[in-house]
Each structure stands twice: as structure tokens, then as C-alpha cells.
């Protein structure tokens, strides 16, 4: 994605000035030798697939909270969203680069702030209605003014005029009890439908990951008439209208979701699956058995107890994931407010032993917080490796030789067997290396969240899954008073670096700034104790083609098909 971006910056240096006037602007978002060259790679070799039943059954892992893209937050929903709606751009199934979606091409201004999308003229909704630039404008307005859209900030924090509109909306809501109007949105926010097929978005900062954002649920278009007719329940199969390669045929909660090809999809000829059934089975053990028994073709997780068995099978896959498992230190507590104490606690943890002997799930031990992200040229800092001697020394320097004078430390985690095992292992390491007393305490999920949010803990287990493929989704968390900071930690230099990175256009320089920032966290100040990077593991049948491993665990359904078994 970013290679393309920097290329574009050169290519369309002037294009941003003329898109309104020019009939067919020359700066072309997909300006490779031939626009669809990349796509040929994903075509089947021959027609043998036509002899096979093209029906996919997979387990998405839990009941989707909603199929309304504006309100989605979780992974299971977003997985299904890929079939049901399509944004301005889509992700390449293998490289995750931006590929044409509703927009057949796009241009970026040289300051990286103005994106002009040229929507394809044959873009349609699943009921046959034409899809217009205005649909995006209204859909985004809807997200920002929806009372229950968690990802609204992606829009109002990114787009020019967004923050002002947000303020206006809050004030209007408080005084009149109603949302700010769409007319106001159109006046205030720079997400403009220039004409039915041209959509121009002006950003506050040159947001490197903006195209990635347009692939997210919150930025997907919705069919205005359908949504307005029944704002809460339009996602039922009876009323559903979408623009994705597939459309909703049946949604039977906690049982299954059935999708069939959308005949009005602009690329309907490319779509090969005839039916997709998504199951919401939460019990991974059951899902695994179903897979072994041939009842499902693809499961998106493997029960820890079954991993040994799964690894022996050819259908097993594992890949790094955009998620980090770590511990928070409450730096406002006495003793823990000492940098050396936190560093010693971090150095005393043998992460390899935790991933190899405790979780045994193929996790990647990490002394850094943000996983490497290729698209953003980001390689995380090294951090400090396991070093018990140095840890002891640091602890003594901090005033607790052999752990003397250090009060009992409590590790707080949400009740779960895996978290418990990790906590026990770490407690043991701290006891042995530093000679301190460590206790464990657990609570049910919501209680745990509440306690962490109120900073009512000493050391707390945590996990973080990136929202988009950019280090920012990890690193802006530690800004002073950041909504998810919850450690009490604050560092001026860190804040500066993050703000600078936000405005930086050059991707390499930006990555450098972010790296410097993360170094403060994992090599100097230690408000957190990183443990490992999550992995995605699952099973998929051999015959399933067009499915590629990628860090987002994103598998667009239009590429999938079954090949005859050999």
C-alpha cells in the first residue's frame, strides 16, 4: 500500500488541482501496466473448479453483534462484512495492498491529504439501485451521528471538518436531543460527492493508512433508503441491501448466516462461490471436531488442547497476527513508580519459556509492543532480552536487594485458564529472580475492565489488537491521558514524537519517529511489560483456493473457490 502511495505522490503531483475539471484525469490509482494485471494471479488455472460444488461452510467463532457495518467492532463481524459490503477500495487477498473496490481508481494529492476516488459507473446495490458518491457521504455521516458506532472516531478524527462536526453534533444532541443534520455535515465536513461518480476526501493529516481505513466496516457504504426504513433491523435477511460480492440470504442467530452471490455486484463474473455458510460456534473444541469430521471447510481458531493434534495435519495454518499480549504497570503506585523496578520486573521474565512451555500456542515472544508492520516500514525496537542477573542488580539499585523491603505484588487478570497459567509462570519468575512475594487475582471480564480503567491494580494483564495495519493503532495508546493508557504513565517526549509522526508525510521518517517513541516505552520507561505477539491459527481444507495468509487474517470471499481434490 505504501509503495503505491509514495509512487502516487510523485505521479499525481498536480492531479489534485484538476480532478473536478478534467473529464478523465490521467493520474490513475491503479496505474500498473494493465489495470487488472494483479487480478490474473488470482484466477483459477483452468475450468476444473466448475466441476466441484462451490459451497463454503466456515466457523467465524462467535455470533456477530450486528451485520450493520457502521456498528461492527469485532473480528467475526468484519470477517462476514467482507462478503456483504465493499468499500471504496478493497484489500489484496495476499499482500493486503489497496485494490479497486467501488472506486475503480483514485488519486492522492502531493501533500497526502486529498484523496479523489473515481467510482465505477456500474457500481450497484444488491437491489439493483445505482451506488453513488453521495452514498458514501451519507453513510459516513450516519456513522458519526449514530449513537452506537464505536469506530466513528476513525472518521471524525481523520477527515477535515470532522472534529468541528463532532463538537457541533454533541452540542446539538445535548440541546435538542437530536443529531446534527446531514446538511450541516455536507457543509462542514470535507467528504464531498463532487458528482455521482467522484468522491473527494480531505484529511486533517496525511494519514498514511487512510486507504486501509476505507476498508473497515465503519467506512462501508450502506443503502440509505433501506437503513432509514428500519434503522435498527434492516440487517435482517428480509430487508438486507448491500453492495458486496455476496448478499444475505438467511441469518438465524446463534445458528448460521447464509450468503449467496449478489447478482448486481460489478464483478459478479469473478465470484465463484455459490453459497457461503458462516457458523457462530464459540466452542473451539466443537469447531475442531466439526472440521475433522468434514462438516466445515475452514475454522478460524484451534482449541489449545487440540494444537498438538492440529499441527500434525496438513490443513493447519499459523501466521503472525496484528495483536500484542502484555502487562500494564500502574506507575502511580509507590514502588512501581520507579523506572528501575519496572525494568527489573521486565528483565526477569523469560518470554521464550512462556510461549514454549506455558501457552504452547506458537505465539511469538516479544520484548516490544507493536508487531512489525511491513506496509508501514515498521520494525519494532529490540527491547531487553531476559537477563536475571541484570534484573537482580537493577532491583538492588532501586533499593530492594534480594527483594527486601518490596511489598507483595499482585498480578490482576481476567478469569481465563490461559491468562492464569501465564500469570503463574511470571509470578514464579519474579519470586525466584527478585525474591519478592507475588499474588494472583482474577475477575470476570467486565469487572476486570472496570478495575483497570479505574487504575485499581498494580500489574494487570492486557491484550491489544490493531484496528488497522499501522503502528499508530498501537502506539497512540500511550499518549498522556490516552483513553486506553490506564497506566498513569506520561512522557512529553513520547507525545511529541507521536504528534510529529502523525503529520509526517515521508513514510520512512515517520517509521523512524514511531520507532523512537516505542523505544521510550520498551527500552527506557517500561510502563508496560510486553510478552508476546499473537498468532492466528486455524484449519482449512486443501481444496479451498484463493485463500492467503496475511497479518490481518483477512480473506475476501470473491477470491475463494474449491478445486477438485487430487
Amino acid at each position: 500500500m505504501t509503495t503505491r502511495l509514495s509512487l502516487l505522490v510523485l505521479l499525481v503531483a498536480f492531479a489534485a488541482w484538476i480532478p473536478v475539471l478534467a473529464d478523465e484525469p490521467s493520474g490513475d490509482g491503479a496505474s500498473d501496466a494493465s489495470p487488472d494485471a494483479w487480478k490474473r494471479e488470482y484466477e483459477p488455472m483452468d475450468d476444473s473448479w466448475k466441476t466441484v460444488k462451490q459451497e463454503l461452510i466456515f466457523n467465524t467463532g462467535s455470533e456477530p453483534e450486528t451485520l450493520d457495518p457502521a456498528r461492527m467492532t469485532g473480528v467475526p463481524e468484519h470477517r462476514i462484512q467482507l462478503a456483504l459490503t465493499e468499500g471504496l477500495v478493497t484489500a489484496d487477498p495476499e499482500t493486503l495492498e489497496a485494490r479497486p473496490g467501488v472506486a475503480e481508481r483514485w488519486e492522492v494529492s502531493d501533500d497526502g491529504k486529498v484523496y479523489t476516488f473515481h467510482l465505477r459507473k456500474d457500481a450497484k446495490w444488491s437491489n439493483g439501485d445505482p451506488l453513488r458518491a453521495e452514498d458514501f457521504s451519507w453513510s459516513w455521516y450516519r456513522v458519526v451521528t449514530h449513537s452506537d458506532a464505536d469506530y466513528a472516531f476513525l472518521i471524525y478524527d481523520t477527515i477535515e471538518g470532522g472534529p468541528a462536526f463532532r463538537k457541533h453534533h454533541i452540542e446539538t444532541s445535548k440541546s435538542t436531543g437530536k443529531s446534527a443534520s446531514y446538511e450541516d455535515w455536507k457543509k462542514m465536513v470535507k467528504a464531498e460527492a463532487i458528482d455521482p461518480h467522484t468522491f473527494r476526501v480531505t484529511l486533517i493529516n496525511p494519514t498514511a493508512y487512510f486507504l486501509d481505513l476505507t476498508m473497515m466496516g465503519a467506512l462501508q457504504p450502506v443503502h440509505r433508503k433501506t437503513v432509514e426504513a428500519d434503522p435498527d433491523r434492516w440487517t435482517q435477511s428480509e430487508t438486507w441491501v448491500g453492495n458486496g460480492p455476496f448478499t444475505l440470504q438467511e441469518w438465524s442467530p446463534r445458528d448460521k448466516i447464509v450468503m449467496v452471490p449478489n447478482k448486481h455486484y460489478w464483478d459478479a463474473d469473478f465470484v465463484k462461490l455459490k453459497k457461503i455458510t458462516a457458523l457462530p460456534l464459540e466452542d473451539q473444541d466443537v469447531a475442531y471436531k466439526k472440521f475433522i469430521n468434514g462438516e466445515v471447510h475452514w475454522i478460524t481458531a484451534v482449541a489449545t488442547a487440540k494444537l498438538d493434534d492440529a499441527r500434525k495435519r496438513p490443513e493447519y495454518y499459523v501466521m503472525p497476527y496484528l495483536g500484542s499480549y502484555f502487562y500494564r504497570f500502574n506507575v502511580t503506585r509507590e514502588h512501581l513508580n520507579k523506572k528501575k523496578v519496572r525494568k527489573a520486573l521486565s528483565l526477569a521474565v523469560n518470554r521464550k519459556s512462556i510461549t514454549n512451555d506455558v501457552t504452547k500456542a506458537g505465539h511469538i515472544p516479544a520484548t516490544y509492543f507493536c508487531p512489525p508492520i511491513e506496509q508501514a516500514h515498521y520494525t519494532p525496537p529490540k527491547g531487553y532480552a531476559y537477563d536475571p542477573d541484570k534484573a537482580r542488580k537493577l532491583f538492588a539499585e532501586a533499593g530492594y536487594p534480594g527483594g527486601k523491603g518490596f511489598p507483595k505484588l499482585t498480578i490482576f487478570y481476567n478469569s481465563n485458564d490461559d491468562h492464569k497459567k501465564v500469570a503463574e509462570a511470571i509470578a514464579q519468575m519474579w519470586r525466584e529472580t527478585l525474591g519478592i512475594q507475588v499474588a494472583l487475582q482474577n475477575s470476570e471480564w467486565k469487572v476486570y475492565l472496570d478495575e483497570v480503567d479505574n487504575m485499581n491494580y498494580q500489574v494487570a494483564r492486557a491484550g491489544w489488537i490493531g484496528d488497522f495495519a499501522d503502528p499508530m493503532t498501537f502506539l497512540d495508546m500511550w499518549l498522556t491521558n490516552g483513553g486506553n493508557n490506564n497506566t498513569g504513565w506520561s512522557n512529553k517526549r513520547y507525545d511529541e514524537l507521536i504528534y510529529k509522526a502523525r503529520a509526517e508525510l515521508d513514510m520512512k521518517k515517520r517509521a523512524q519517529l514511531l520507532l523512537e517513541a516505542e523505544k521510550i516505552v520498551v527500552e527506557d520507561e517500561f510502563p508496560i511489560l510486553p510478552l508476546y505477539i499473537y498468532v492466528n491459527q486455524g484449519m482449512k481444507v486443501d481444496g479451498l483456493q484463493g485463500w492467503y495468509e496475511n497479518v490481518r487474517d483477512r480473506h475476501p470471499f470473491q477470491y475463494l473457490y474449491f478445486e477438485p481434490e487430487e
Partner: protein
Amino acid sequence: MGGLFPFEFGDLGVLGLVYLTLLGAGFSLAVTADGWRARFAWQAAAVTFALAVLRWGAGDGDRGAWDGFVGPGIVSPILVWLAVRAGDVRDRIPALARNVVLLVLIGMTRDVYLIMVLLALVAFVETDGRWHALLARRIGPGLRGAHVFALVFLLYCTFVQPHGIGFVGGLFHLFAAGFLYALLAQGEQMAAYVVRRLRSAPIVMAIILVLSFVMMRTAPGGPYTSEKSGDPEMEALREERMGLNDPWYEQFANYMVRVAWSGDLGVSFKQKGRPVNEIIADHIVPSAQLALVSITLAVLIGMVAGIISGIRQNSIFDYASMSVAMIGLALPTFVVGPFLVLLFAMKYQFFRVSGWDDIPSRDMVLPAITLALPFAARIARLTRAGMLEIVNQDYVRTARAKGLSETTIVVRHTLKGAVLPVVSYIGPAIAQLLTGSLVVEKIFGIPGLGTEFVQGALNRDYDVAMGLVLLFGTLLIVANLIVDVVYGFLDPRIRHA
């Protein structure tokens, strides 16, 4: 507005006529009123008045507010006048006040049919059942015809009428029907007994509701607590819109009024925008199907094994079946379930590992067996114990001495005694099956209510959890009540106690 119940005040039609006929019966009683008859008249007045007000409020339907008000609005003052004529006003005020509250809660369901049932019940309670006894004496033999008519009518309402309301409304009506029938079929004693039992139900329900509401709201975290906390101002806006910022007692009052007014149990936070009524209606079907099949299976297996064990005490069969029963009791479902799957779905592929398609189907077999086993075991042990107790009774010995065949002795004399403990067990068992099959639901991927209940509580999905507490509470109370009534049929001693 819809709600759980099939009828709205908008169209009274035939039901309205029936309702007015019922009121007519009230008149005739009130005219000759003294004491309890006056009480009945008062209640009828209260119900009619509530109805009048409600129909006024429900004026958003096809009819205007005034249209809705006219009928009951005219009738109720007449009833009040009759009631005043019939008895001392001051005596009646506490009862009236109490029942107005009750009526506001239940009457607002806008279900004329249910109102009728409730009217009958309230009157029944208020008159200690004498109203019915009087009716029974006056109508005499004709009552049997009335029974049949009532039963057919109720069954019709249960299975034919509930257009769109699905299973929940149907169940409600079925319970009401069975209950009313039981009352009609019995005499004064039985009625008084049922009244005693019935009086505690609203109190129990109220305690359950208040407690669960307070516990839910005071538990740390809320429906929107998540790992990724968002924009605080926008969050505040959302909570304001959802009414989550009000004090809990205000929320409780709002909740109760809404539930009572329209039968609307709210909307799920987690399953965004999905109405709780729909959640219940959708998921109670698999739960009920599973519960029904399982309990039938459990009763069949358990009773047969228990009876044989009881007759052939200390035989090989006795030891064998009781050992199996012990194992059945001891093995938790999360062991039995996966084992059955391993054996019959993986090793021998008779069934799918999980799924719930086009029931009745093979998908039902394994979960039903898994769920039925512990209940069958318990029933077998209860039956056996009951049999043993009866077999040694004098009258059984007398029967033997008279030379009756063993079959006759078992069927005629011992079975009824043996059945008693089982009956008292089945009520709670059904309730337990409906509510507590979470594990089986998970193992077999069944979209039932247990998962919704647990997830509702864990996610702080207030309305879902409360809706299910309400449902389960009602089911439990009703199930126990039915058992008590049936018990009363079978064992006269209970009625007199």
C-alpha cells in the same frame, strides 16, 4: 406496539363480546352482593377502569382514543355504583389499591384475552375461590360443557391465534389454559388451595426482579465497557440516549412501566438492535423442543427402570439399573456430551458433531440423550423409592391376599403412589431443562436460551438478562404451581393441608 401478546385493544371484536359477557356475569353477582361478592364487583370495576384508561392511552391504534375509552369507560362507573351498593366502601380500599398496582403491571399488556384470564384470576383470589364454587353450583351439570368450551377456546388461542407471536405467547396461553382448566375441574377446596399458592407468586416475582435488577446495575462495568474505550464525550452521549445515566431506581421504574405497558422487554446492547422479545421468541423454540424431548425420554426411561427395580427389588436388574442411574447422576453433561459425539459422530458417523437443522431431525438425538440421562437417573431412583414404599403398604398386601394378578396390583394400586414424587420433580426439572442447558447448547451448537442468559449477564446486556430472568422466573413459578395443582389432583391430603 406489538409486544408479547397477540391481541391489542384496537380490535376487540368477538373477544370484546366475550369480555362483556364476563362482565355481565360480574353484574349479576354484584347485584346480589354481600361480602366477597362485593369484592368481586370491586375488582371488576377496577379492571374495567384500568382497561378504559389503557384503551384511552392506546389510542394510537386503528381506533381513536375516545372510541377505545367509551365502552369500558361507561361500564366501570356502573360497576363501581353496584359495588358501593353491595358493600362497605372503606373495607374494599386496601384490596383495591393493591390490585390497581397489579393491574397496571399486567393489564397494560394490551392483551384482551390475557386481561380476561387475569380478571378471572383476580376475582378468584379476592373471593377465595367462592365465586367459582358458586358458579359451579348454580350452573351445575352444564359446567362440563363449559369446561370443554373453555378448553377448546384456550387451545385455539394457544395454537391458532398467536399470529406472529410465536412460541412465547403460545406458552403463556397454554399455561393459562391448563391452569384455568385445572381450577374449573376442581371444587372449592382445590380452589382455596390454589389461591393460597397463587398469592405468594407476585411477591416472589417482585423480589426476583428487584434483586436481579439491582445486582445487574451495580455490578462493575456496563454494556459498553470494552477493552478499547472510546471518545468520552461521545460515550456520554450514547449512555444518555440509552438512559444508562439515570439512577437505578428510575431505570427500574422505566423498565417496569415499559414492560408492563407494551410487553416490550427492550433491546439487546450486544446483539445490536435486536429486540429481547425476538431473542426469546427465537431461542425458546430450540430450548423448548429439546426440553420436551429430553423430559419425555427421561420419564420413559426413568419410570420403566424404576418400576421394574421396585418390583424386582435386589434382583440383577435392580442392581444394574441403579448402578447405571448412579453413574448417570454422577457424570456431568460436559463429559457425557463430548463422549457421545466422539463415539457416534466421529468414530461411527451416525450423527453430525453439532448443528440444529430442520427439527425434528437426527441433530436432536445426541443432545436429547445427553440432557435426559441425569434426569432419567433421578426419576428412576425416585420411582423405585416410591414403589418400595407402596409395595409394603397394607392395602397392597390385601390386594395380593385377594389373589389379584401382579400386573393389576402394579397398575391399579402401586403406580399412583410411585408417581407422586416423580410429579413433584418434573416441574422444577422442566424449568431447569429450559434454563440450564447451557453446556449442552455449547457442545451441540444449539441456538437455545441458556447461552443467551449467560451471555446476557456476562455482557451486562441488561435488557436481555432481565428479560430472561422475567421469563425463567415465570416459568419456574408456573411450573411449580402446575405441579402443585396436579399433586392436588393425585393426592387429596395436599388439598386439605
